[in-house]
């Protein structure tokens, strides 16, 4: 079937999704099970930039909108999903990038909140782990966002985290957030 450009894929109107966002509710993507019907011809680059047919999507609101209907499939692939359509999307590394950090409190009472490139806010804690994994070219820090999807922690944010951890001292290089400890030294 011929691929329509992504703005047409949704049976949910822009207004509908915008309303859900405003209510801080995300579309129930986990409940939708339409037939897979193709490739969105979209790609999320490592730095979080969204591309469509090779061109960056400049409109921030559009990216934010698409990010709300992004889902990770059991096989690890990513799709954009609506009640009636499911299109695959290529993700280079992680679908989100954590671009800003807010740290409150110290030691075990610390709380870390991240802002994602899509505008979402994620508080690190027992359900949203911060992990450092060895990649091809060194360790990469990730933040769990939702539904099996993670945010790559931006370089500047990682630098802040490491500096906070070095100041903090303690048994291991790492930080507490909302009652959970997250090692940053990469060791298991």
């Amino acid at each position, binding site marked *: 079937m011929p691929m329509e450009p992504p703005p047409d894929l949704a049976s949910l109107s822009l207004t509908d999704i915008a309303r859900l966002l405003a209510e801080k509710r995300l579309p129930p993507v986990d409940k939708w099970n339409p037939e897979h019907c193709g490739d969105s011809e979209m790609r999320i680059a490592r730095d979080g930039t969204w591309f469509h047919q090779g061109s960056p999507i400049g409109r921030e609101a559009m990216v934010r909108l698409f990010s709300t209907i992004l889902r990770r499939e059991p096989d690890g692939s990513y799709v954009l999903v609506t009640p009636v359509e499911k299109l695959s999307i290529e993700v280079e590394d992680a679908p989100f990038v954590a671009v800003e*950090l807010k740290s409150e409190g*110290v*030691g*075990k*009472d610390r709380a870390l909140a991240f802002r994602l490139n899509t505008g979402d806010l994620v508080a690190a804690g027992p359900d949203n782990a911060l992990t450092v994994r060895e990649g091809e070219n*060194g*360790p*990469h*820090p990730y933040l769990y966002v939702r539904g099996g999807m993670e945010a790559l*922690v931006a*370089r*500047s944010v*990682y*630098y*802040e985290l*490491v*500096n*906070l951890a*070095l*100041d*903090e*001292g*303690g*048994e291991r*290089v790492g930080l507490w957030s909302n009652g959970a400890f997250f090692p*940053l*030294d*990469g060791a298991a």
Partner: protein
Amino acid sequence: MTLAERLRAALIEGHREETILLPSATRDPRIDGEMVLAPAAVLVAITDRADPGLILTQRSSSLRTHAGQVAFPGGRVDESDPDEIAGALREAREEIGLPSDQVQIIGTSDRYHTFTGFDIVPVLGVVPPDLPLVPQQSEVDDWFELPLAFALDPANRIKRVMEFQGAERHYYEILWKERRIWGVTAAILANLSRRLGYDRIAA
């Protein structure tokens, strides 16, 4: 020459020349404009023995902050402290019961600015050996003495690098018996090592 005289001479000599110091942590980018640093002081307590020792504390693992950290006795300089030396002495008294009148002050060394805005002054002092020090359970689990020469020997300093996409942060780690000294404490020891002539780098 007594130990105190030797250390004083070494400290003065060490501070006379330009030496490459470990840079303090870069300022927190979230702090705009002029950062107001919180004054803090630590006591570098050196025991008066043939092989001088260095007294360090191990913070309680149950603490809300800096749990399990190996550190110099010390902390924030209070408004009631006349100066940093008084602050370091008070903290050492409160943390491990070190009587202030037993400390022969040698001098202060390079300030270390932490990322989160503490301006730490190391205060060097010589103390008699085998003082009956008692850790205050609320803050400090334990104290221990390791040979000063071991703590300052650059060969015992392991350089660790945390790197991600070019954002590099180095820190030092000194492992002595089961103790792990790293972060701010190891950085201050590295600077002292340079100032006291254990680690001369051609500038």
